């Protein structure tokens, strides 16, 4: 930890005698090798003779902290520091203690203090740099790493981290030159110039940097060729090459590269197909960038608007060349479905045989698969239709439905597909009914859908999948209780199926049966600990989210808040977990993945899951603000003044009884805890974290509007693309009387989703327009406010505006 030549008593001006100096060094060694008991023993030997030796006290405190005795440790370290403020060792240990408590800001201060005393201590510099990157103090990080590189320029990690630090402050060219200088220092026999995982990753990272320079694709492409001999990840190499070629509009070359990718086996990778299509159609570079970002099993064929001619070109390519080369590829067989003209005979034949094959095979996801073919236009692109009103009028949907109806008739009457030979086993009919039910579900025809799923259950009552769909349909039709029961019946059939168990839990929570839900959940949690704790440890946020919503519906606001806070804690853990990766990734040279992690962590607080939890918290606090809980707890003293003498006597006796009961319970719990503590000391179990506030009373005691404000601020900063962020902002602003904020929130919401699309925006807009607000004493400001408010209504009167919106919706 400290240099062997360091004077351990530099601050006090009196060095320790040689024997004790050696002992001190062994203390440090024991700490580093995690031999804590030995370390404490040796430290005590030194302290017997030099009880005021600050550095030994600090080291002892540090070791105590590692063995879990946190409070004692902190006290000891503080004492040690007091006795020797000019020792960098003491400050370093002080910083380490803060770091273990995750108080990173204080830790940085402590390290900086230590560095002031010993400017070139590598260990302290390293600890400081880890904290700086953790807290994203990027300028500090660059400086520290620069110093470290100058002190030890023979360490590879120092070069790489310095380059990375330049990259993070967006000095890409600087980063590249640092890597180049490093590579020049290597001689011919070094392993880093041979082909292996580390040099491959470094080369790809360097290439990524070159491509990040704007309009630099030609250089990037040339560099990619030059480093091919080092690269192990050929799939990535080819994908990147194809990307560059598309950006440089070298369409013929790009097509060849994509063909290579398909030959290597990436036939099911839809982004490769998208790229291949871009190359054939020679689309513009920005379109190509967009195309390669399409998620899931979709290509440009069902995302971007293509002309009929373009679709014909692609169709020829797929049906002639690709289908011959890759006859077994599911993607190659499926993509033409998105290219045919909708009502053409070819499309009908194609989709008919596609469906038949999947129904014979019994593919449960066929319904979802076909649903992805039903598209609706939105802002110049195509998205999958979700609204029943859009789906019902869609010609693709109507054709598919009539085909399936034909299947049902034919299979029911003579057991075979229309105009096809061969008798089908009963399972084919089962899956056809299932598909028909799901098609009804898409169009929100719930009673028809239930009719078909009942046919399925009649025929094969042991089919768990059918119960799931029936439950979903019943829930959609409005009866969550029966839905939960139905799902539970299905769950009973196969108690090893964790998925159906989780679905049952979800429905039970939505039906307000949280005790049953916990029972079911406990069937799959680890049996040693209490199930709620296990759910928390596994960061099982879906359960916590549903449970929180369940409590909120039942107006148990404290419990609801506790669950939402648990989700927030998971995200805090995600943030803290990145700490170890700062050193690990550099050592393993997984630089691109590391950059991805850093960028993901930067957007952590805008993550959908966190946003949902934060919104839950905000809604709960707003509810508490508007409807503060009345003090009708059982423990509260009843109002004695309003009773007669006899009633008073009775009430007091009852209160005394209750108190006694509560005391007895507390005694029993204390005795139990003592017992369990004894047991746990014997078995050295990890200490059970007892929840001292299961009902969330502490959370309820906070100021609801203040808390809501805090969470809304986080959302506004990190999740501005979520419409619910702005709806929350509006609601909180109105209650706080901040009308300009409310106005801004409405404007942002309106831009994201207009009133005709989102009724939440609409109702708030109307309410806002009707308010008589005196927002500012200055007439000019008030005027601006009023005119902006009017602009929200497109400068119409309230009635006209409402009429227009209604017309649009129709």
């Amino acid at each position, binding site marked *: 930890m400290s240099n062997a030549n360091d004077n351990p008593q530099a601050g006090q001006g009196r060095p320790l005698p040689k024997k004790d100096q050696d002992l001190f060094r062994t203390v440090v060694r024991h700490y580093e090798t995690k031999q804590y008991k030995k370390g404490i023993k040796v430290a005590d030997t030194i302290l017997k003779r030099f009880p005021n030796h600050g550095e030994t006290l600090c080291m002892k405190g540090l070791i105590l902290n590692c063995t879990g005795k946190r409070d004692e440790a902190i006290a000891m370290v503080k004492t040690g520091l007091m006795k020797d403020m000019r020792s960098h060792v003491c400050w370093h240990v002080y910083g380490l203690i803060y770091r273990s408590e995750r108080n990173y800001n204080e830790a940085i201060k402590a390290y900086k203090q230590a560095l002031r005393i010993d400017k070139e201590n590598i260990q302290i510099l390293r600890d400081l740099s880890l904290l700086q990157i953790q807290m994203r103090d990027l300028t500090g990080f660059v400086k520290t790493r620069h110093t470290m590189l100058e002190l030890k320029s023979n360490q590879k990690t120092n070069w790489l981290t310095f380059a990375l630090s330049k990259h993070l402050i967006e000095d890409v060219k600087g980063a590249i030159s640092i890597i180049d200088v490093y590579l020049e220092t290597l001689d011919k026999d070094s392993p880093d110039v041979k082909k292996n995982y580390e040099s491959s990753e470094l080369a790809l990272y360097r290439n990524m940097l070159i491509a990040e320079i704007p309009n630099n694709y030609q250089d990037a492409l040339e560099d990619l060729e030059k480093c091919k001999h080092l690269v192990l990840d050929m799939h990535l190499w080819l994908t990147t090459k194809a990307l560059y070629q598309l950006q440089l509009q070298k369409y013929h070359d790009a097509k060849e590269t994509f063909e290579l990718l398909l030959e290597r086996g990436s036939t099911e990778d839809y982004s490769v197909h998208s790229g291949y299509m871009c190359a054939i159609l020679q689309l513009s570079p920005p379109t190509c960038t967009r195309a390669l970002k399409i998620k899931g099993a979709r290509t440009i064929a069902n995302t971007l608007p293509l002309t009929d001619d373009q679709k014909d070109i692609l169709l020829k390519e797929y049906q002639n060349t690709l289908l011959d080369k890759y006859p077994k590829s599911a993607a190659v067989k499926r993509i033409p479905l998105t290219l045919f003209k909708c009502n053409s005979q070819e499309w009908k034949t194609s989709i008919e045989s596609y469906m038949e094959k999947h129904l014979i095979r*019994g593919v449960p996801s066929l319904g979802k698969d076909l649903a992805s073919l039903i598209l609706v236009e939105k802002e110049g692109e195509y998205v999958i239709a979700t609204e029943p009103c859009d789906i019902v009028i869609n010609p693709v949907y109507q054709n598919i439905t009539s085909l399936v109806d034909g299947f049902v008739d034919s299979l029911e009457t003579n057991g075979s597909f229309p105009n096809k030979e061969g*008798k089908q*086993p*009963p*399972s084919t009919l089962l899956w056809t009914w299932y598909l028909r039910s799901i098609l009804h579900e898409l169009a929100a025809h719930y009673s028809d859908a239930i009719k078909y799923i009942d046919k399925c259950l*009649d*025929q*094969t*009552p*042991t*089919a768990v999948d059918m119960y799931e769909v029936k439950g979903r349909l019943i829930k959609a039709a409005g009866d969550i209780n029966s839905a939960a029961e139905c799902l539970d019946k299905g769950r*009973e*059939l*196969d*108690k*090893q199926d964790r998925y159906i168990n989780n679905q049952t839990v979800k429905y039970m929570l939505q039906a307000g049966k949280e005790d049953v839900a916990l029972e079911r959940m406990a069937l799959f949690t680890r049996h040693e600990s209490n199930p709620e704790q296990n759910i928390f440890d596994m960061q099982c946020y879906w359960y916590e989210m549903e449970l929180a919503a369940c409590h909120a519906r039942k107006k148990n606001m404290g419990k609801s808040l506790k669950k939402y806070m648990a989700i927030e804690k998971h995200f805090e853990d995600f943030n803290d977990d990145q700490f170890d990766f700062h050193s690990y990734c550099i050592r393993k040279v997984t630089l691109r993945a590391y950059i991805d992690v850093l960028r993901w962590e930067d957007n952590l607080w805008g993550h959908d899951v966190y946003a949902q939890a934060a919104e839950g918290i905000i809604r709960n606090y707003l509810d508490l603000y508007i409807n503060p809980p009345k003090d009708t707890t059982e423990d509260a003293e009843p109002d004695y003044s309003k009773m007669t003498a006899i009633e008073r006597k009775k009430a007091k006796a009852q209160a005394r009884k209750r108190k006694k009961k509560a005391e007895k319970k507390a005694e029993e719990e204390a005795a139990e805890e003592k017992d369990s503590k004894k047991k746990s000391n014997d078995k050295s179990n990890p200490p059970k974290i007892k929840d001292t506030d299961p009902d969330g009373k502490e959370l309820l005691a906070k100021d609801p509007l203040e808390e809501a404000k805090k969470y809304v601020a986080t959302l506004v900063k990190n999740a501005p693309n979520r419409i619910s962020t702005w709806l929350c902002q509006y609601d909180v602003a109105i209650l706080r009387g901040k009308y300009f904020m409310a106005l801004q929130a409405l404007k942002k919401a309106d831009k994201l989703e207009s009133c005709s699309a989102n009724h939440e925006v609409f109702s708030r807009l109307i309410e806002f327009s009707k308010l008589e607000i005196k927002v500012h004493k200055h007439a000019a400001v008030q005027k601006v406010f009023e005119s902006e408010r009017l602009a929200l209504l497109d400068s119409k009167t309230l009635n006209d505006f409402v009429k227009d919106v209604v017309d649009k919706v129709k």
Partner: protein
Amino acid sequence: MKREIVIDFGGITNDNVEQLRIINSTSLPISYADGFYKDVVKAKNESLNKYAYHNGFVIGSICCRIQDESKIYIMTLGVLPSYRGRNVGTKLVQSVVDYAISEEVRSKGVQEILLHVQIDNEDAIKFYQRLGFEKGEMVENYYKRIDPPHCYILRKKL
């Protein structure tokens, strides 16, 4: 047989025993107590207690036990109504017969398979006769809650 369907066999465990209840309730006129199902699960013998699966779903089952150390007794046999007439029941019984004549079981002294059938269940009697079972004596008032309450014993010597 043209209408024959492909089936697989699988064991009956505590996690899937509810499906046995469903098969029994759709195939048999009497209902069985919880103890019956507990015993089947406890026996853990897939050769005597098994499901018939088709395309991933349970469509039939057979449950037997060893009686008096010399007989195999078929307690229940059932196939979902929509899947009958496709050789499933036959395959279930045949698999037990094959097990019964195997070396390990023969060496234990098992000599016959038997079961009870309600006297008016013509289809069942014909079904077992086709498989080589013989109609034996009648047992009066065997059943408590169905009519007719009498049954035949059907036997197959191994």
